């Protein structure tokens, strides 16, 4: 392609061309596509401005981990345990809650940064100087489905493309032989595929699932990647014949770019079939590495494998990777028992991932996001539970140009409402895109007469989070 124009210009031209796809003339888009891309619509392309992060690993804690039991230390909650909340509860609540419930876990300060972390995350606590906490997150939906969709797609109301699709649409992929957006063991509940679908963006930007939450990560695969009993040389012979037939066919049809693109897509599929299983096969990793991720312990094995896979995919140039710890964190009761169990399952694998990314130099340009769809109420549901709370919760990021050893924003004295430096889910999206070098107001797609954005008409980039 031309080098005469600026990188940003080139990028936006490609995106303009892509908009044609959504305009609904599929055949037409290929003329435009063929012009806009060297190879494919998922080929890597420049960002709007210099990126801090090249890729994202999203560690999704499905169910809603409690901020006041993990990273948001609230001494007054301890002091006023059992007393009523001294201010009003939200207009809309998912369930009724009672009085304040102190955290069953002790908090301690860690690292140079002195970040407070509860006993639930002893291993992640060792990495606090790499973490960038946002303790003033808030969203709008108090039910799982709405909140999951809002976090993944920016909309709790309508079907919209997921953030992984937007990122892939904006930046393309760095590896043609792998899907650019991969989600490992995602949930089929609470929005399911909509959480990784491209909605009205072209289908090539949809997430590729590896298994789903109902299968252990050990047996999760990408569908139709395996050629079964067919030998490689047999399939090669097939593809050679296919290429010959297709080439002749296209030659009689003015080399229609739509036809030529499909010829190439078979070659890509063949390469993917070779490369993807190698990337997905973690058996070749050393015992020390596996142990780092907790794969030698049955409790941490499942999520540890997800995290190790995420690292391997990141290394291979996949743009957006999601690991899901599915629907475990919803402790309306049994908070003590199950939050402890959940944290135990993910704490070591996450610490292992952070360590591994760091020593491999990947953390610099890999944005790690740890988040649930919402937090939980500091008030008690029953004796030993907490209700959903979208009004104030904690997430953290690491690497990818975020400020290490930093904590931003705060909730009130009890951890119910985000209060200082509030960050809405839309703001988080705007900030993540900015870290990737994308302007959330310019990353648009024309559909049904409107230019749609991940952030709808909202979203402020929180530059305080930048290193």
């Amino acid at each position, binding site marked *: 392609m*031309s080098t005469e124009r600026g990188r940003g210009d080139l990028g936006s031209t490609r995106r303009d061309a892509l908009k*044609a796809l959504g305009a*609904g*003339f*599929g*055949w*037409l*888009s290929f003329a435009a596509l063929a012009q806009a891309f060297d190879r494919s619509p*998922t080929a890597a392309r420049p960002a709007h401005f210099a990126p801090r992060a090249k890729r994202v690993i999203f560690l999704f804690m499905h169910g809603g981990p409690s901020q006041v039991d993990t990273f948001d230390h609230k001494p007054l909650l301890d002091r006023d345990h059992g007393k009523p909340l001294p201010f009003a509860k939200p*207009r*809309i609540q998912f369930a009724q809650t009672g009085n304040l419930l102190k955290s069953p876990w002790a908090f301690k300060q860690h690292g140079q940064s002195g970040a407070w972390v509860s006993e639930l995350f002893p291993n992640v606590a060792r990495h606090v100087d790499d973490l960038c906490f946002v303790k003033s997150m808030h969203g709008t*939906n108090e039910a799982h*489905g*709405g909140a*999951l*969709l809002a976090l993944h797609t920016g909309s*709790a109301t*309508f*079907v919209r493309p997921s953030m992984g699709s937007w990122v892939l649409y904006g930046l393309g992929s760095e590896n043609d032989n792998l899907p650019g957006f991969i989600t490992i063991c*995602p949930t*089929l*509940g*609470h*929005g*399911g*595929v909509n959480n990784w*679908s*491209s*909605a009205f963006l*072209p*289908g*090539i930007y949809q997430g590729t699932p590896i298994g*789903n939450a*109902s299968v252990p990560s050990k047996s999760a695969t990408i*569908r*139709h990647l395996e*050629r*079964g009993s*067919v*030998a490689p040389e047999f399939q090669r*012979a*097939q593809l050679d*014949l*296919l290429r*010959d*037939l*297709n080439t002749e066919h296209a030659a009689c049809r*003015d080399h*229609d770019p739509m036809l030529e*693109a*499909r*010829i190439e*897509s*078979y070659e*890509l*599929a063949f390469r*993917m079939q070779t490369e993807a299983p190698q990337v997905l096969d973690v058996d070749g990793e050393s015992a020390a590495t596996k142990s780092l991720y907790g794969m030698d312990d049955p409790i941490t094995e499942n999520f540890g494998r997800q995290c190790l896979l995420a690292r391997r995919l990141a290394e291979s140039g996949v743009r957006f990777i999601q690991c899901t710890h599915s*629907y475990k964190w919803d402790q309306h009761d049994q908070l003590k028992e199950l939050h402890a169990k959940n944290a135990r399952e993910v704490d070591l694998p996450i610490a292992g991932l952070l360590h591994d990314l760091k020593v491999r130099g990947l953390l610099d340009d890999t944005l790690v996001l740890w988040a649930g769809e919402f937090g939980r109420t500091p008030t008690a549901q029953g004796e030993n539970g907490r209700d959903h709370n979208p009004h104030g919760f904690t997430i953290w990021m690491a690497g990818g140009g975020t400020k290490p050893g930093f904590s931003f924003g705060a909730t009130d004295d009890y951890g119910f409402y985000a209060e200082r430096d509030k960050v809405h889910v839309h703001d988080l999206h705007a900030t993540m895109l900015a870290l990737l070098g994308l302007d959330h107001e310019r990353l648009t797609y024309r559909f*049904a*007469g409107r230019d749609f954005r991940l952030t709808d008409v909202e979203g402020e980039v929180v530059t305080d989070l930048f290193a």
Partner: protein
Amino acid sequence: MRRRMSLRTRIAVLAWIALGFAAARGADPVVAELPSKFDASDFTRWREHWAFRAVTRPTPPTVADTAWITNDVDRFVLARLEVDGLAPAPEADRTTLLRRASYGLTGLPPTQDEVDAFLADAEPGAWERQVDRLLASPHYGERMARHWLDLARYADSNGLDENLALGNAWRYRDWVVRSFNANEPFDRFLTKQLAGDLLPESADRAEVEDQLTATGFLVLGPKMLAEQDKPKLVMDVVDEQLDVTARTFLGLTAGCARCHDHKFDPLPARDYYALAGIFKNTATMANLEFVSRWNQRELAPAAELAARDRHVERSNAVAQELANRESAARGEVRARFRREFARVLVAATDAASGALMLEAETYARGNLHVDHEHWGSAEVGVIHSHVGGTQFAEYDVTTTEPATWHLYARYAQEESRPIRVLADGADGAVVAASALDAVTGGFMPEHQVVARIGTVTWSAGTHGLRIERDSHFPHVDALVLMRDEPVSGDLPAALVRAAAAQLALERRLSTSPWRTWFAFADARTSEACRAAYDTATTERNARPRGPFDALLDMPMPSSREEFASRMQAQSMVVDRAWDARLRADANAKDLGDPELDALRRVVDRLFAVDAAAVDAAIEPSVAAEIATIRTERDELERTKPAPFSRALAVRDAETIGDVAVHKRGSHLELEPELVPRGAFRVFDHLVPSPVIPPTSSGRLELARWMLHPEHPLTSRVAVNRLWAWQFGAGIVRQPSNFGLRTEPPTHPELLDWLARRFVDSGYDVKAMLRLLLTSSTYRMSSVAGAALAQADPDNLRIARQFRRRLDAEQVRDGLLRISGQLDPTAGGTLLTGADGDYVTNDQSADAARYDVPRRSLYLPIIRNAMYDLFSTFDYADAGVHLECRPATVGAHQSLWMMNSPLVRDAARAVAAASATAPTNDSDAARIERIWRAVLFRAPRVDELQRAQAFLERARASSTAGDAESAWVGLAHVLFETNEFMHVD
């Protein structure tokens, strides 16, 4: 690199030329002069937008090359080409044509026989006959329905947050198929979907059902069912309906106006809320509970529903009367019995001494779990089941002489788990097929009650009394057998026996409320009675206080009968108190004194063991009256109308009112004034605003407003869709957006001419399609020639046909049809679960199944977990209105073609069919058969050689253990070709 004119500019320039504007003027005066942002104060200038102007009645232009003209469609197309000095592409060959039309009109490839017949038809009108045949095919409606369902965001599950099965959505789908097949006029098709429920009821019952079912269009949208802000949920549903309705029928993107005036199009927020009022007054939700439910309606004429309601009302009344009479009669029996309480107690106590007791946990054979801790207690061991499957216990009972026994059990259960009881092992006579079916209020020891099971007759010897169930078991504590013997005096034997069984079982328990009595039970002499009194008094202090303990404070009784009389007296005092309590408060639950309430309950229970025995003791005249009522109840039950099918459907809200503008779309911030229900005012110059009566939502008036013959959008949008479905691209390339920010039509006069013709024909869809398909324009080849392909890559002039990739359904249906596996059965649902069940859940289980060779139209459309074939081939989302399917290319599609079992199975079937051949068959002949099966033509020489070379390579491969695999591999390749995957 040469900078191209932008897509929009290219289309616009060509359109302006066609509109007659001089290209030299440089710009469309209308578009150029409109401010970039819409200002709601004045519609006038926006009314000049091409799509908002009146539909013209253009005369088909004259052309030079009249020989090319088949019908007037061609005149518009050719006139345009002749301006540019271009010639239309030549006519496609017959095989290409038939494949194009078959896929286009039925979604299926032709059969080889159909191709051969067309090739052999040398008579004039051969093509027209093919078009007519396809339009008459039942598969025509299926293909048209698939297009329509994309617009209607059809799905079999809700999607979004709570993915519940829309278990009746398929009725809407099947109606769409029927409607197209019957060539229902489009105006009626539209009206039924928006307001079928408001049309006068048809005399034709099927039509009544269709009218309701069609309104499913409004209900099908995905809804955030667990949204706890319910007023927001309601407005989100309204918005979704409004947006889909406007895009589907008007080609307007009205959703934008929810929060503010539309940025580009003349759709002010005020008009949005005029329309929102129409939908807000439409009941779309059945309830707004925690997880809310969408509305469904029974499919029946009003008269049948009323008759059913009357029947239900009558049945309820009779059932109530029966219950009242039975209850009174049984109460009378029990009261009578209570008056004899002392005698019954003594008689039953004596009878109980002959009882045969079987503790449930002492079974000789069985697989039930014994529990003394959780469900049972140290004293009350119970048997229960851990898992499902067949559960049983057998007890060896030895009898010394032939006799008949009455069998009772003490048990507890929270849900009904009836058991089977057999006299002697698994093959023994059935004592009761469904015993212990009543629930007792819980599973714990305090929930245990005694109930009669049945009668068993044994000879002398040992018998294996068996209880069993094919699923979870009730918690059984003990069984007791009472010999069929006369009881003392004139008391009804059955009732005494039942009381005896109860007492026998109570007697084992250290905390039984009857303990006080049990001390006296065997005291037949005054001496024994004295000793009993001492025992009872001592015992009383060693256990929790019982309901009869107070009687011990009275002087010592001289006999057990006297103590029994005192118990009866006390019981009758309590009964009188209870009667008084009920007179004061008919809903009273207790007397408020735990001891008295306990007494009342234990005495009640003594008489509740054997309901049949109670009934048998009812006064004969009363029993006859009850029998008469029961006969009527049974008759009403027998004549009960079968339940009506239900469909997703709406009705008008019970109270009708207007809606205010919601500031920034928020239901929490309303403008002070209400907006009268209505439609978009920008069309007021052509179509009078709908006049909506205060008693109606206004849906019917909205439909009629859309169908006003001068409405500038409805007919244009509809014919453009029919065109786009058959050509692969519309005259307006964005079929659901006729607003200002869309590309104008490539052939505006043709669009208007078609729109007028469509309305004039009475909205005849098949006639319109016949016109399009028989045109020379449709029959052109899709090969442009290199020069034209470069000059007009987007085919804006329509100098050739449009090449398109098969969509997901065509790929699958094509594979199944060509390989002979397709099951052409139409209609019905393939959902496995019940209406309203979760189809995907928190645990990520996916209940949908796709391994049926039915047409893809009938496969479950599961939002949030779309069948991977669908999502792979660009049908990724069934939650949004799809104006047309994108056609992307990606490695994921190629992987699917290479490795999915569907393609493998199709290839295997084609290879197998090609093997049924004459002897001395050559490879070349078999290759040709495979070619013809998949691509409807013989291979060219070079292709034949390549295929032969492939067979050699494949046979040499390590997979070649099976001689057939090379042939399967060859058929597989043909399915992967662009020739199979595209329509020329």
